[in-house]
């Protein structure tokens, strides 16, 4: 058994709450825009005024179905909404509408990559659609609490995994992969800082072969890093308890990111009885074959498919493909750059390299995204083409790239304006090399006496004499010939 921690097996299952990317709420036409003034996006329905009724946002259903395709799940042709009853000031109706008994998607799975490069399948039990609650604000007044209902009724997908993960790393990989899939599908923007993707982690430990032990549920984790930290802490805590002969309580815990600790929120005994029952205000969601087929046809290429295609079609490495498919936009950028290149598909590998090293560095430095970068995609192709047709060396290309990123000018123009065309004339190079050898007799003598490391010195001196524009392969070749 791999992955044991001090002889204990760790069992992790995750419930991910993903806000469905829709313009209006799940059961009302109120907008879902982020950051609006408190209670400015609240309808009579959202405030649970008497006699107000829910009308299902069909777009939210479509997005959930597409997410279901994204995780290779079964789309259920009949699903149903249930009420989860509990009192809380930011839950105006006293119940949350969710799908307990008949969720829209069941039995999915996604593959994650482990540290050693192997692939593990994580099963997804279900995706169901539900409403978000509002927000209680306790720190505005010493006397009162305030309620903001802007979030109340915003559509969420709850994506529930099986307890298939065996380490915090696997859990983090799962969330990364899930996030990537949802972004590809377009059903969730997965902005964790805004709370658009939140994770509840169920974790227990056992000796291999034992039955499952009591689990702790860590609620509302809003970053992948915190997920790892919370699980690490929790594993240590549970091992400590068990090794001291104590039991782990079945309870709900909160992760305090400032302390890096989880702490108890409520125990199982305090757990509410939610009295789920089918919502009589809503009819079952019945999906036609046509609708399912239409949504399937609308599905984009998913990360795993894209990865396989990139490796096969462009001959790039697994690792590079991983980086390029991280998001749809980067992958699209790559493909468009390759398409614009004169040397496609041979140029693909070089384009991938240039994107991953130089382009990403610039984006990071300037805080830009691949969509706001300051030069057209064609320039990326042009730059690589200039290297491939030997107009410039890779080294000069870095100068050209920096200039291009700064000014937005075309690479060919930069090369011309700055006179950066590579020197490829053998005679000219030989002349410079002869001069370098003549000017450094001592080093020549040492080299000939066996200090071969000095070869680099001659390359450097020659390149310097040509302001870096010499063709490095030719310099190497001629130097070897000359120095013997």
């Amino acid at each position, binding site marked *: 058994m791999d992955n044991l921690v001090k002889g204990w097996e760790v069992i992790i299952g995750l419930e991910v709450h993903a806000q469905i990317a829709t313009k209006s709420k799940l059961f009302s036409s109120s907008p879902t825009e982020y950051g609006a003034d408190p209670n400015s996006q609240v309808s*009579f329905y959202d*405030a*649970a*005024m*008497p*006699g*107000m*009724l*829910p*009308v*299902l946002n069909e777009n939210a259903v479509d997005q959930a179905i597409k997410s279901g395709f994204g995780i290779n799940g079964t789309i259920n042709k009949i699903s149903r909404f249930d*009420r989860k*009853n509990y*009192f809380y*000031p930011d839950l*105006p*109706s*006293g*119940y949350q509408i969710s799908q307990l008994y008949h969720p829209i998607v069941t039995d999915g799975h996604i593959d994650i990559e482990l540290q050693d490069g192997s692939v593990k399948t994580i099963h997804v039990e279900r995706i169901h659609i539900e409403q978000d609650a509002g927000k209680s604000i306790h720190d505005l007044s010493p006397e009162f*609490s305030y*309620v903001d209902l802007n979030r109340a009724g915003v559509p969420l997908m709850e994506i529930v995994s099986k307890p298939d993960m065996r380490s915090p790393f696997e859990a983090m990989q799962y969330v990364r992969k899930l996030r990537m899939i949802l972004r590809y599908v377009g059903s969730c923007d997965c902005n964790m800082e805004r709370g658009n993707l939140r994770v509840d982690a169920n974790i227990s430990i056992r000796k291999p072969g034992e039955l499952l032990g009591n689990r702790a549920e860590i609620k509302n984790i809003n970053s992948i890093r915190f997920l790892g930290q919370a699980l690490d802490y929790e594993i240590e805590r549970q091992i400590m308890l068990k090794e001291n002969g104590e039991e782990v309580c079945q309870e709900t815990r909160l992760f305090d990111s400032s302390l890096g600790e989880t702490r108890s929120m409520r125990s199982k005994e305090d757990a509410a*009885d939610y*009295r*789920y*029952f089918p919502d*009589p*205000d*809503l*009819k079952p969601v019945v999906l036609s074959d046509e609708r399912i087929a239409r949504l399937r046809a609308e599905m984009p290429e998913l990360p795993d498919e894209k990865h396989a295609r990139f490796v096969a079609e462009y001959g790039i490495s697994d690792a590079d493909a991983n980086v390029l498919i991280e998001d749809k936009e980067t992958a699209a950028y790559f493909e468009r750059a390759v398409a614009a290149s004169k040397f496609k598909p041979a140029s693909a590998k070089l384009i991938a390299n240039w994107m991953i090293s130089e382009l990403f560095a610039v984006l990071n430095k300037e805080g830009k995204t691949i969509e706001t970068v300051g030069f057209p995609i064609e320039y990326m192709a042009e730059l690589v083409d200039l290297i491939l047709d030997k107009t410039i060396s890779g080294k000069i290309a870095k100068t050209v790239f920096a200039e291009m990123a700064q000014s937005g000018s075309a690479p060919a123009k930069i090369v011309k304006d700055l006179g950066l065309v590579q020197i490829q004339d053998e005679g000219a190079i030989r002349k410079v090399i002869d001069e370098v050898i003549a000017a450094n007799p001592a080093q020549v003598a040492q080299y000939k006496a066996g200090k071969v490391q000095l070869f680099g010195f001659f390359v450097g001196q020659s390149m310097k004499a040509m302001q870096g524009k010499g063709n490095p392969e030719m310099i190497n070749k001629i130097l070897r010939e000359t120095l013997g």
Partner: protein
Amino acid sequence: MKADLTISEVRKGLKTREFSAVELMQYFLSRIEQYSALNAYVTLDTEKALAAAKEADERIAAGEDLPLLGVPLAIKDLFCTKGMKTTACSKILSEFVPEYESTVTQNLLDDGAVFIGKTNMDEFAMGSSNITSCFGACFLPYRKKSAPDVPLVPGGSSGGSATAVASDLCIAATGSDTGGSVRQPAAFSGLVGIKPTYGLCSRWGMVAFASSLDQAGPLTKCVEDAAIMLRSMAGYDPKDSTSANVEIPDYASFLGQSIKGMKIGIAKEYTDGLNNENMAMFERAKSWLVDAGCELVDISLKTTPYALPAYYIIAPAEASSNLARYDGVRYSKRAEHYDNIDELYTNSRSEGFGEEVKRRILTGTYVLSAGYYDAYYTKALKIQKMIKDDFRDNAFSKVDLILTMTSPNTAFGVEESTQMSPTDMYLNDIFTVNSNIAGLPAISVPAGLSNDGLPMGVQLIGNHFRECDIFKVAHVLEVAANFFDKRQKIIKI
């Protein structure tokens, strides 16, 4: 002003300038004041009512013609009315003024109706006597011959609407029927009351009691008025996901059509155990239909006895959830004293809800709780399915309509009702809940007077969306019963 005008009489009188809408409104407002002891209305805005009537007069003068233009109606306090207090006769909503108009009342307004005010009802429509209202009991305008001094209930939960119509305090009224709340008060008060097919009237803007059973329906003096009212109230509403997208025919056009050859089911489960007086009444109603050329068919609906227990699980379960929004946090009345959020909830709800409402919330919470859900709620839903199938397979595959009594009894005393056990009170719904459970349309038509001089009603249950059949046959019963004339013999207060 002639007493007990019908809608078509009002429309004719207004068109011929025999009287104006304002005069009509003044007539009712003065009667309401005169008979305020009946406690039919809980909220009045006379200025607004007169202004609406004046506007109707102007529209009539301008030649406008709408089915209800200038017709003064009473509205059960369960329908949200924009700018007018809507309390569902509960303390917890005593300060609630909606900023929106329910679909049903908007439909009536769109047809030109003018609203007099809001009528008394059992709190959140939970009751069969109108005694659970936070505004106090409402009274039947009639008395028993044997006990002329004993005040009687108008039935419930639409008791105020029934009293308002029966006492000539409006032309017609809206009600709502979850287990019989339109039909039972109609029967007690000598009125026509119909609960349409579930989904025919939008529930948007109606304070919810039990969402899967609630339906709006009119209380009127005659079948024709019920047909006119229902046509106006009904209609597809995209704001209510359970609303039915069906054409609403001109129900009144079916009145007077021959019912010859129609098959009327007589189910022994509804007649076994009827007392002699009820049985005699029922036999008379049967003979009227035979005289009109109907064929009576004996049927058996074996699931009938299970409807009431299923109802008293499903309805409270939904109510316990529907009423959770009255928590004292927003528009519902907040308790004065509390130290934390739990106390705010507990105190607001303890003070705001009456006994019967609390009983049903507790029942509903119990039947939905972990460990009991399957034993109660799941089973009740299974029974509901069986009842639906029973009606389909053993009634409407053979007959057009089913004839039953509306209520096992006539109106009872207010005092008596306060001493009834809840389960005895629930028996009032025994003949009416079945159609709610199955979502079927059903009407109560006044058929005659009891030996003690109180109105008795018979019920027709139809197949889904067959309201036209119901109206057609109800009209025949109405003509045969000649109840309009019999009304004169009732002891009025």
